[in-house]
């Protein structure tokens, strides 16, 4: 017997750039988990599944977190790409392996932990990039931005429009960090981090966490979100391409087939936004941003004729809570589709397209994942 799974609860902790000195990642994740469980109308004793995306929970593992929270589980999963956990959780509920699954993503970040995390990101980073003096992926995404800029004949203003748009959105979100209005001139005048990237092209680090709860549709009253399409490409080009084929084109086609709808016919798009170039490239591959629109983006900016992109302001303007960044856009979309977005609520938001991108193995992200959501 198959039970449809729906998203029935959502929560996001307060994001902060300066966390209390004695806090832990476990406490942060616990806060988000308990808030999402309550939002779903559940007691912790009813939860039987846990998914975790976190780099800095170490040396604890997800089972330690479950133990400390008193959760008795039948289902447990840990993985940085949170959307893949959501899909596995959906299938586990459909098949009956679990009934109420909470998925959390977040990290307690400061610059020391960030440096440690990015220096030991994987063996190739440790062995081949750190010895060159590269800590963090700014050099790689500078090369990708330059390639993208040349290929499409764009000026820096096009990338600035991503930041300008997301600033305006972040001003309406409770966890906005960069919320002052930004002009093209101010964007262009910002300090250069590399010869290609300005300060505002890079995400601020924050401490924070988000969580969602998946339940059987039949168990839930009230507004929920349905998952109507999902696909992923993991290591699709072996890091042997130019970094500007994220693999989202075929994914968008799949979402169309699975849902029987046009995946670009949505009210909002939450795309992973570690750098503006990745926002634009994803929107292009998904079919949301046409070549003509891209060409004029520097002057026209976002708005008219496009779904709302990253309604919370995204990682660029709310900050990246470690690997919790992969859940940020998903939480944003779920809040929008259930009318929980406060001042930034998009009236009548009914459908959303959400992506994850990342795992920079050497030169660029190796993974892209997308999910199509519908309010029910």
């Amino acid at each position, binding site marked *: 017997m198959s039970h449809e799974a729906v998203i029935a609860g959502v929560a996001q902790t307060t994001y902060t750039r300066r966390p209390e000195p004695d806090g832990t990642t476990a406490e942060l994740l616990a806060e988000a988990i308990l808030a999402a469980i309550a939002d779903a109308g559940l007691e912790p004793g009813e939860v039987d599944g846990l998914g975790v995306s976190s780099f800095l929970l170490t040396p604890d593992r997800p089972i330690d977190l479950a133990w400390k929270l008193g959760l008795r589980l039948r289902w447990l999963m840990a993985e940085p790409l949170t959307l893949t956990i959501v899909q596995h959780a959906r299938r586990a509920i459909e098949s009956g392996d679990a009934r109420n699954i909470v998925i959390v993503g977040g990290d307690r970040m400061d610059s020391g932990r960030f440096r440690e995390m*990015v220096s030991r990101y994987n063996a190739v980073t440790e062995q081949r990039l750190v010895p060159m*003096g590269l*800590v963090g992926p700014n050099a790689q995404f500078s090369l990708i931005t330059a390639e993208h800029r040349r290929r499409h004949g764009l000026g820096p203003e096009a990338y600035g429009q991503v930041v300008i748009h997301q600033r305006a959105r972040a001003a309406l979100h409770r966890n906005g960090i960069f919320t002052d209005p930004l002009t093209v001139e101010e964007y262009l005048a910002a300090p250069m*981090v*590399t010869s290609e990237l300005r300060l505002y092209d890079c995400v601020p680090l924050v401490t924070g966490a988000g969580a969602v709860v998946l339940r059987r549709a039949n168990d839930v009253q009230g507004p929920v979100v349905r998952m109507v399409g999902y696909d992923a490409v993991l290591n699709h080009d072996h890091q042997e391409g130019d970094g500007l084929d994220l693999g989202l084109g075929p994914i968008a086609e799949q979402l169309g087939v699975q849902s029987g709808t046009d995946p670009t016919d949505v009210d909002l798009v939450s795309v992973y936004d570690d750098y503006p170039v990745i926002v634009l490239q994803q929107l292009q591959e998904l079919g949301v941003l046409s070549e003509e629109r891209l060409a004029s983006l520097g002057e026209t900016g976002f708005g008219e004729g496009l779904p709302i992109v990253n309604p919370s302001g995204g990682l660029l303007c709310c900050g990246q809570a470690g690997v919790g960044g992969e859940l940020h856009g998903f939480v944003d979309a779920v809040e929008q589709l259930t009318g929980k977005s406060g001042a930034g609520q998009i009236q009548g938001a009914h459908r959303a397209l959400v992506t994850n991108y990342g795992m920079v193995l050497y030169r660029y992200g190796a993974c892209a994942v997308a999910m199509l959501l519908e309010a029910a």
Partner: protein
Amino acid sequence: MIEIELAIQQCEQCGHRMFPERLACSRCGSSALLSQPAGPGTVCDRVDVYRAPSGADDGPTHVVLVELDAGPRLLARAAVDLVGGDRVSVSDEALAAVAMRLWS
């Protein structure tokens, strides 16, 4: 100082060449991989990194994307002022790939 040329991998079965090191060929899946010198390449692009995440200011790091004649594209630190189109050799200095201009 003795310069050690960077090593890449070549698949014994299909000839595909790779960098960084893998456990099996990304084209045919064979795990019979040989090590060989990277050989010369061409700079595709260069970027200067001004600020390390640590905030330490050791001056800019010049990074180049190099396409080897043998195939693989790799990241290297530029030992000298390099620009796109420059012909380079790539040495291995304590695991750091370093690109030097080749005079032809």
